[in-house]
């Protein structure tokens, strides 16, 4: 039982970190990133490939995080001066190209076979069940990222982000370089996704392109929309809710006349429906502040 809870807790922690990156982009700044999973993939594959190439694990992880952030910048350059839609379109395309490269460049990524056999942090020196340690490592990372983000969004820098979200013309009229702020946010959010990718690789011990399908992005979206856009505490709650929904519906499997494919499509339909209903009637989510978020006014 405890092993099961730890395994579920790990997924919750990793997805909470992943969604915190998206929350910085969408929740605080109003940037629509539909390709968040691409940065998760870059983080995971860079960490694993460099480590397998003989680099120490921590250097590989840093490289994964930096590379994810770098690609965030590349995606931002052609799109962030234009309307919000363009970022959404280009990111969704970008993440799909990343997945296609992982799938087809066998010489580098072993394609659909995926990669396994790589170091995990302190695995050699942990005397007890490694999953317990990874659980601790994930939640300490989550706490650190959470605290740093909270400080950032409550700093003058963070207040500029919120003003961009509410009305970017006002922000630029006040002399703020809106484009530069948006690029910084996309770099930081993507880097956080890259870090989550490294953790995901440690948790799975085996990564392949199927771990990085577009739907992963929308798991992060439902976490952010449910928990409350622009509310980091809500993200943690949202990550728990998504996992409860998942595990809960898995228990239901025995009692419904649907096969597992139907069950998983039904789950995604419910997630889609929740996205629609929340954006229509409760865009601030369960925990967000309505008076703060200007959407739907």
């Amino acid at each position, binding site marked *: 039982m405890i092993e099961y809870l730890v395994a579920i807790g790990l997924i919750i922690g990793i997805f909470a970190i992943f969604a915190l990156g998206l929350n910085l982009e969408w929740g605080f700044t109003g940037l629509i990133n539909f390709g968040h999973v691409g940065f998760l993939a870059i983080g995971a594959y860079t960490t694993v490939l460099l480590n397998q190439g003989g680099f120490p694990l921590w250097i590989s992880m840093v490289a994964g995080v930096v590379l994810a952030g770098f690609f965030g910048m590349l995606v931002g350059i052609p799109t962030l001066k234009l309307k*919000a839609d363009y970022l959404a379109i280009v990111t969704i395309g970008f993440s799909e190209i990343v997945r296609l490269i992982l799938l087809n460049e066998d010489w580098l990524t072993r394609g659909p076979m995926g990669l396994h056999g790589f170091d995990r942090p302190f695995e050699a020196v942990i005397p007890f069940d490694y999953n317990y340690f990874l659980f601790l490592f994930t939640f300490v990372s989550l706490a650190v990222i959470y605290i740093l983000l909270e400080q950032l969004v409550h700093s003058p820098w963070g207040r500029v982000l919120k003003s961009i979200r509410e009305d970017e013309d006002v922000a630029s009229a006040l002399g703020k370089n809106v484009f530069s702020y948006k690029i910084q946010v996309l770099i930081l959010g993507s880097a956080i996704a890259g870090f989550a990718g490294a953790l995901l690789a440690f948790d799975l011990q085996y990564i392949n392109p199927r771990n990085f399908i577009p739907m992963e992005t929308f798991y992060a979206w439902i976490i952010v929309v449910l928990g409350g856009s622009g509310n980091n505490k809500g993200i943690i709650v949202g990550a728990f809710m998504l996992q409860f929904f998942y595990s809960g519906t898995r228990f239901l499997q025995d009692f419904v006349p649907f096969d597992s494919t139907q069950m998983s499509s039904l789950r995604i*339909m419910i997630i889609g429906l929740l*996205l629609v209903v929340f954006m229509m009637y409760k865009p601030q989510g369960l925990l967000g502040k309505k008076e703060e978020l200007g959407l739907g006014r």
Partner: protein
Amino acid sequence: MIMQLVVNGIVVGSIIALGAIGLTMVYGILNFANFSHADFMALGAYIAFLLNVTLGLNIILSFFISIVITGAIGVLLDFIVWKPMRKKKADLVSLIIISIGIALILRNGLIFFWGGGSRHYDLPVLKGTEMFGVIVTYNQVIAFGTALVFLLIVHYLLKYTRTGKAMRALSDDIDLARISGINVDKVIQWMWFVGIGLAGAAGVLYALETAIRPNMGWFLLLPMFAAVILGGIGNPYGAIVGGMIIGLSQEISTLFLPSEYKLGVSLAIMIVVLLYKPEGIFKGTKT
């Protein structure tokens, strides 16, 4: 070899063009990128499958009924979702997120009822004919011919009918259209009917050319957005030209790129346009 790719590109391009018309109209008039548009293509293909294979109707009849039903679902969604959001003067970014929610519901609804595998219409299998060393299949001729007829119908609708002219007026300036006495909501519903109906038509034609799959729309979404941006947002004629250019470049790219990376060609063209000419090659209404 290259002629074969050009032929394939023209066929796929005309299908992308047909789908992109609705996408660009929504983008021009309602001002948001509709991420569910491509999944209506798949929906149209499956409705035609239901009529043709499950109910045993003739394929031509199935095709037209499917267009009407798909278009009607588009109008229904306007009543349930888009119109209430217009009344609330909702932020455009929330509309984009709603549209991706609808996309997830549609795509997985198709998987729920029909599973993830490929299906085909009940059609006689006909061999392609060879002309000047280029193989043209019967289905390609049908797909291209039908797409061409529909494009001409759209041209007639937009140029010569009252509703079509009103649609173009809305795309230019919705408030100006309103004060000149156009019933905006009604024109918008017609726009959904035409745009989503055309998406359904494009879906059936694409299924003829390939196969019916729940994620078939997903692989056309990026090419369609590229066509719309290339042709100038809100400009249906631009979308048609853009669709042909995208279709041709995707096919011709397979000469020097693995065909798995076709989507990358759309993305690359789109990024170049965004960097150097974000308003598109023809006059779009908005950037």
